[in-house]
């Protein structure tokens, strides 16, 4: 009974504690800190778009890899269970990768032509370099953003 009363008094005393005011200029300092770190909206949108592009490329790559694995799963599994099969499986994978690379190399001039046409006749390397720069900036910015978000929460 006495204990309950004391607890109630403690609760009431804490609830009645006055709020303290920070020193003059606190709000201004906070707003200045925010302004110094604020990111323009267009920059955020650009980064988001670039991030989506990178994610789409990543998803495409994962899909192609998964499809390749699925298509060759039988052969790979059969090789893996044989003695020395892992080395053979790696050889097979390397051979297939080589084949795909050869096909890609053969298709490169045509692809480059397409890119160049899409960019209004500019050399395709300009477009590739710009895409690489955008990707690097997006990855760097997203890594930074992730770190800040983890710190914030």
């Amino acid at each position, binding site marked *: 009974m*006495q*204990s309950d*009363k*004391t*607890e109630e*008094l*403690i*609760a*009431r*005393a*804490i*609830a*009645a*504690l*006055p*709020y*303290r*005011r*920070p*020193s003059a200029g*606190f*709000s201004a*300092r*906070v*707003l200045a*800190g*925010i302004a110094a*770190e*604020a990111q323009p*909206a267009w920059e955020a949108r650009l980064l988001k778009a670039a991030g989506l592009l990178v994610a789409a490329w990543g998803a495409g790559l994962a899909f192609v890899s998964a499809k390749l694995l699925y298509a060759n799963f039988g052969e790979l599994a059969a090789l893996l269970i044989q003695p020395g099969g892992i080395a053979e499986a790696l050889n097979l994978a390397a051979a297939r990768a080589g084949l795909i690379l050869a096909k890609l190399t053969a298709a490169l001039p045509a692809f480059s032509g397409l890119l160049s046409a899409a960019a209004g006749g500019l050399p395709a390397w300009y477009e590739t370099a710009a895409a690489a720069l955008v990707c690097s900036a997006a990855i760097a910015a997203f890594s930074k953003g992730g770190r*800040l*978000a983890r*710190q*914030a*929460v």
Partner: protein
Amino acid sequence: MMAETETDLVSRCLGGDNTAFAGLLEIYQDRIYSFALRLLKDPVAAEEAAQEAFVKAFKGLSSYNPAYPFSSWLFRITHNACMDALRAGSKNVSMDEEDFTELPDPSAGVDASVSDSLDSERIEAMLASLPPIYSEVLLLAYRENMGSSEIARVIGAPEGTVKARLSRGRELVKVKIFRKGGATV
């Protein structure tokens, strides 16, 4: 013109209107600063922690889930800033539990005249003498009127831990009242 509510300001902020954050700052600055001050016991450190919390809140606004109260989200960021400050503090403030072995049984009762004289100054001093893990749950529960589940979200601990800390925090305050009372009555 009617003043904007906290919900309006949060909605405007989430909608990309950054100027609304100044309104939220105005609403919360005293509460956040007082909470930080009572944990850190140093006005300069408390202002730094509060400022850091507001800046982080602004930057992380997109991660705020409006399904939960804005206040508990903001207090969570402040809690993190204060814990970082305590860990980094040169004063090496203890965040651990106190040794309870020598404590008298608080349920034995506290002199009513002592309890009745619990003014702000005394309770402030008692809270300041508690380890921060207890004073913060007491402040959040009674000063900020938060329930156990909300406090659990703020401090990032299970609800059971919050209840245990509240109970031990109250016991510690009672013991301090008892000791003071014993000395003065």
